[in-house]
């Protein structure tokens, strides 16, 4: 497409810079959460609310999906369209499983009166974990679009470039989740 030989590395560099600014959003939300984590306003604490084995399964889904995306990128590199498609679909299913578990968790919290309006702790919790969940949802949408584009265009330069960006985005969300399960769930249960 471009006259100067850009192999897509400039696009991924630009996308990386976007991800770093996204990092700052999460950094402020984490700082907010830790400051407000003790302000439960007489309501339930994390210790009473969080189900650690459940969070462990959520973590496993996201971690496995990070690995399957890695294998998708390897399939892309050896131009194996069928394998690429299969790995992407598998990644999508794992991500969707994660979001389904998270929605179920949020619904249960709200049902037992621990919604975002209950206390500053819960407002910060829903904002932080919800923002991560929205990112994963956006990633799922993007993934679905890329699975479609792959079937229409095949593995061309544009699809390569876009999947390289999506791969960074997806791995980045797993990194944010490491901080979420450590500083929100595990720290809350100590």
């Amino acid at each position, binding site marked *: 497409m471009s006259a100067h030989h850009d192999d897509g590395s400039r696009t991924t560099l630009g996308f990386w810079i976007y991800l770093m600014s996204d990092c700052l959003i999460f950094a402020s939300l984490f700082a907010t959460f830790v400051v407000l984590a003790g302000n439960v306003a007489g309501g339930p604490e994390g210790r009473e609310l969080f189900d650690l084995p459940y969070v462990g399964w959520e973590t496993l889904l996201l971690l496995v999906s990070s690995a399957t995306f*890695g294998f998708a990128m*390897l399939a892309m590199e050896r131009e194996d369209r069928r394998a690429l498609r299969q790995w992407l679909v598998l990644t999508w299913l794992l991500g969707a499983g994660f979001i389904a578990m998270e929605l179920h968790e949020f619904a249960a919290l709200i049902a037992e009166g621990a919604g975002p309006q209950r206390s500053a702790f819960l407002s910060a919790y829903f904002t932080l974990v919800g923002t991560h969940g929205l990112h994963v949802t956006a990633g799922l949408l993007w993934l679905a679009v890329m699975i479609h584009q792959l079937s229409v265009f095949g593995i061309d330069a544009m699809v390569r470039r876009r999947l390289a960006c999506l791969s960074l985005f997806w*791995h980045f969300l797993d990194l944010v989740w490491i901080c979420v399960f*450590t500083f929100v769930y595990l720290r809350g249960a100590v």
Partner: protein
Amino acid sequence: MAHTSSHGTAASILWGFLLSLILTALAFGAVMGGAVPRGAVLPAITLLAVAQLIVQLVFFLHLGPRQGQRGNTAIFLMTAMLIGIVVSGSLWVMYNANHNMSPTQMTIAAARNRD
């Protein structure tokens, strides 16, 4: 970014996955198992989280000192510094604010009479 090496190998993905799995299991185990003394749990899980972040940055996001990785790595290190300043600064300021302005048993009338 050379196309041949930018996405790692199957071995590097499996190593990253395996190490992440072990570090995650250790973190959950430290909190749920009860083998770690209470005071040491928070430092332990913080250390495990940092270790896992480094593992995933290296194995999944391919950060490192090699040519072609340096740009992304330098940008990340700058961001990590900003995050450090924002997070530790916020916690420090808010800790002091809570500490110095914590509610006392004093009534409003008693406080007024003091000045």
